């Protein structure tokens, strides 16, 4: 199906023999098999190959259960693939490291630490002096819009606020790649829009590589350079779509842009087609 204007793979492409110099992450024929409680092997990811260029904002879009989180965990080094390999700057990924910063669907904040304590945790671990780490962390907390909440504990925050803390906590130790798993999935529409704008501002400033998992087609189109569409059972890459829209992106301009609308409509149609729930293999 050829529905989207440009499909030249500039930022993302299946792994080929000649690698562009600026590839930061390569996923090379990665498969993941899970033992389910029914004692049957479940193929969650099948021969996924993908290259992500340095500084690109790449979204992974796909129906629930197609293995998006699993793919992100493999790049994070939290899960080792059943076969195939993921590489970061040519080095095989064998475990987690501060060069890849995850922001989990479940926030996973440290409940015994305050907002400031959570954000400072990474820099302190990296050996940044307490005073310096605090100054930087306070600036980050302000940037994610949580000024005044520095001494609150996670249990005292709303879902959206926790999500902001989780983002600030990961940004604080300057990972080269951000791995974000449906970070805005649980938020109301308004907060979601605000955080999308904030994330885009941060990204346009630092140009970190971002791997962003989402369910939402407009979110993917609005934020990304590339959208990777996955299909389910087994999890496979179905399409890689270049989003050829100017940056910096302004939400109010973009929503009126027919090219943006076409991306959204086309991808949504594809999404619907792949959304029928396959039987577990």
């Amino acid at each position, binding site marked *: 199906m050829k529905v989207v204007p440009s499909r030249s793979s500039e930022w993302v492409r299946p792994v080929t023999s000649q690698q562009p110099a600026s590839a930061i992450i390569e996923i090379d024929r990665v498969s993941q098999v899970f033992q389910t409680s029914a004692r049957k092997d479940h193929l969650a990811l099948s021969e996924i190959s993908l290259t992500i260029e340095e500084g690109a904002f790449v979204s992974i879009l796909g129906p629930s259960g197609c293995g998006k989180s699993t793919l992100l965990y493999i790049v*994070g080094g939290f899960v080792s693939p059943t076969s195939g390999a993921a590489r970061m700057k040519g080095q095989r990924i064998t475990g987690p490291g*501060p060069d890849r910063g995850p922001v989990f669907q*479940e926030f*996973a904040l*440290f*409940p*015994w630490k305050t907002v400031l304590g959570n954000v400072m945790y990474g820099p302190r*671990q990296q050996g940044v002096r307490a005073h310096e780490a605090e100054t930087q962390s306070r600036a980050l907390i302000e940037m994610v819009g949580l000024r005044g909440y520095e001494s609150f504990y996670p249990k005292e925050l709303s879902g959206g606020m926790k999500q902001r803390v989780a983002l600030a906590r990961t940004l604080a130790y300057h990972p080269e790649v951000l791995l974000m798993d449906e970070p805005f999935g649980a938020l109301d529409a308004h907060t979601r829009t605000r955080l999308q704008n904030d994330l885009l501002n941060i990204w346009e400033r630092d140009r970190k590589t971002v791997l962003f998992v989402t369910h939402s087609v407009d979110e993917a189109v609005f934020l990304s350079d590339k959208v990777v569409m996955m299909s389910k059972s087994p999890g496979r890459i179905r399409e890689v779509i270049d989003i050829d829209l100017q940056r910096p992106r302004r939400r109010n301009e973009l929503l009126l842009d027919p090219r943006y609308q076409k991306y959204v409509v086309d991808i949504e149609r594809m999404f619907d087609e792949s959304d029928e729930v396959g039987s577990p293999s």
Partner: protein
Amino acid sequence: MISQAAMAKRAAPVLACVGLLAIWQFASLGLESDSFPTAIEAIRAIPDILGDKESLINILASLRRMAIGFGIAVLLSIPLGLLMGRSRAVAAFFNPLLMIIYPVPKAALMPIIMLWLGVGDITKTLVIFLGVSLPVIYHSFEGAKAVEEKMLWSGAAMGLSPLQRLVRIVLPAALPEILTGCRTGLVLALITMITSEMIARQSGAGNILFNALDMGQYDTVYAMIIIVGAMGICLDAVFERVRARLVRWSEPQFDMPLSFS
């Protein structure tokens, strides 16, 4: 300004104690038994015990054994429980061992331990240690098992080594559960302390109690029961305060603690 509700909350335990003593007083007046002194007689015997140097030395010796037994048990049980909660291999190794020890009354081991180690401090401290260890291990284990995996992943991404994750993530995350175990352990320490002194009479609060019983000094017996009970309540109240401070971050906003503090 103390609100009425707060006043009621503070007065409630006092009223409960007074009520209990009143029932005791009337029951004993009604029964007129030699072996059941009135509450007032028992309370009157307390200053005699606490004023007596020998008794005081005995009680302090009890407390010292209890503190040492409890302290060592906590220091060893928490790491063991946490390791068991995070490592299948460690759990598989220690589980059967603990399952065997768990249902055995620790006091029942005393005769054997006495044979080996005599009737002195070491034997009694060891029994206290055994009594405290199991609940602390169990709760540390449950606490460590329940730690959210993504929290450990976040730590790993920041560069924490497995040992650092155990100490700096699993330990604090499991702390509320661990402290629940320690609180049970504290009460068990008091119980095993008295029991051990009952079996190996030589010194201690239990020794005073059972000597008085042998000599028919029933007011002293009851006074000792009050003293030991009060020690338990005070220790528990102090511990509950410390606990509440340490895990303030996890407490639900409105809850009713089951304690006298």
